[in-house]
């Protein structure tokens, strides 16, 4: 009892701090949700009235829907590429023994640390020369590079928690390296690959800095479209798009979280 009485205020204090932190982190993001259902023509907070017309506009406006499709395609391709390449890289660096292994690992993970603007400028100058700036090919390549670290980190974790004896057991039972990988390793690192793939998708899905450099008037992704629109007309459609973007990202993040919890370590 005596302990509780001095503990209680402390706990309340902690709760308050935590609550405030979450509040300040979340509110600026969530503020777009009410803003998207305003009936007024201006992007204002608090919203006036209720209307779904900005969602209608988002769906019917060609610029928005094209941006949406471009973003989805780019993110899907980048996520697929990043998952395949990242998984191979994770296996190589986690299992392989070769000189400069940690250097290779650092290089693969460097997009996590290098400022995105630097990557964007670098890629832009190279891609222009290769004539793939302003096209989906270029952006998919760039986003793949940005997304690979997420796959590598997730798959490496799966590989580390996986019992090496399982692969040895499979070999002793008559499975060669290929069948051991397909029947044992792959199913067991699948949750990590899935989580990594989802993170990769999200990375590309809401990426704007590199995309601004590597898109053009003919090929624009959703975040770039938003950027352009916000600079020109401040129209609540942006809030509707933001809300949609947010919903997709949140859903995928939750899925990634679930995938990671289905780890092989049981």
């Amino acid at each position, binding site marked *: 009892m005596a302990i509780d009485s001095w503990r209680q205020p402390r706990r309340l204090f902690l709760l308050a701090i935590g609550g405030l932190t979450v509040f300040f982190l979340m509110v600026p993001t969530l503020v777009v949700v009410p803003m998207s259902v305003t009936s007024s023509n201006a992007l204002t907070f608090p919203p006036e009235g209720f209307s779904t017309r900005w969602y209608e506009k988002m769906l019917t406006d060609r610029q928005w829907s094209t941006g949406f499709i471009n973003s989805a395609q780019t993110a899907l391709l980048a996520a697929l590429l990043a998952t395949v390449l990242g998984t191979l890289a994770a296996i190589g660096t986690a299992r392989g023994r070769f000189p400069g292994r940690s250097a290779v690992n650092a290089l693969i993970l460097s997009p996590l640390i290098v400022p995105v603007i630097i990557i964007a400028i670098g890629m832009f100058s190279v891609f222009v020369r290769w004539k793939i700036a302003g096209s989906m090919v270029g952006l998919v390549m760039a986003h793949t590079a940005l997304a690979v670290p997420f796959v590598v980190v997730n798959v490496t974790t799966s590989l580390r928690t996986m019992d090496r*004896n399982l692969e040895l057991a499979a*070999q*002793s039972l*008559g499975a*060669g390296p290929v*069948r051991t990988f397909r029947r*044992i390793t792959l*199913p067991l690192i699948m949750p990590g690959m899935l989580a990594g793939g989802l993170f990769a998708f999200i990375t590309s899905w809401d990426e704007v800095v590199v995309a601004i450099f590597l898109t053009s008037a003919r090929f624009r992704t959703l975040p770039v479209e938003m950027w352009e629109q916000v600079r020109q007309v401040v129209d609540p459609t942006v809030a509707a798009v933001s809300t949609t973007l947010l919903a997709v990202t949140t859903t995928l993040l939750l899925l990634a979280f679930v995938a990671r919890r289905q780890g092989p370590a049981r």
Partner: protein
Amino acid sequence: MPPDRQGRPALVLRGLQKLFGDVAAVDGVDLEVRQGEFVTLLGPSGSGKTTTLRMIAGFTGQTAGTIEIDGVDMSHVPPHRRDVGMIFQNYALFPHMTAAQNIAFPLEMRRAKRSEITRRVAEALALVKLDAFGHRFPRQLSGGQQQRIAFARAVVFHPQLLLMDEPLGALDKKLREALQLEVMHISRQLGATVIYVTHDQEEALVMSDRIAIFSRGRIEQLGRGEDLYDRPVSLFVADFIGESNILRGRFERDGGGGWLVRDDARWRVSAAQVERAALGSGSAAALVIRPERLRMVGPDETGATAGTNTIQASVRDALYLGSTRKYELTMMDGRAARVRRQLGGGEREWQPGDRVGLVWAVDDAVLVSDPQG
């Protein structure tokens, strides 16, 4: 033991060596195992027994030496073509497959027919008495059940060799003892040749036809349990297998037999022991006497008839262990000794503080060289 069917050994290791950097984990192991034999590699951790097993399985390449399985040189054959069943301490069941799928795995790898797989999986499940558990996933099974499934998986394809790496190490004592007998019986029933790794000497004694005692990457002694217990070739083996009393001193030859001399005491060593140990006169040596081979007599009865030795001691503890009584004693020179006597034979029992003479028959003490002497 089944007869030597093909007339050739199931496994031959010759000069097997494994270096990790400059360190020899396995340093020249020679071993020949008969068909259907149960051989245990026993030793403390780091003695090279597990590395030897992993080289037999093909998981680790040897630095030097050869591995022959059923007359075929497997030294450089990858593990999946060695036809060797392996059982791990942590079971290593595939967590994403049911017990039945786990057992079917080696058969699928050998491209067996579906109907045959079904039949043999059912047989294997019956063999380990888990008929009703085929549809369960490993995480839904207890440790003992998991190891039974792992056992079924390792024998279902009738491998040339069955390798087990401390398979019962993670189980509690009671279950371990039950499974020791089960593994032993099923292995015999299948006529399987087994190489079993453990650091538990009791387990080794219970299960094995022969035991190879490992020390510092070498086989210190290879033989049946009785050989190792009654005729250890070194202090290490004597110390590792069972309990022993060790008297250190200097060996002196005297006719056919000899003496172990320490300070002003000396104990007779039988001619057979002298011949076996092949020690030079004056070399550092030790006598090994098992606790149950020591008799206790009153301090005044010398008990020293021809063919026995005596040493004076006092009882420190008299421990009641059910069927036996264990005495912890202090010898006159301050060193510890222990004696184990069967109870219920009408023999006199001693109390702490009693002064006694410890008597042993000359033939019951084993003479070994003393590397620290």
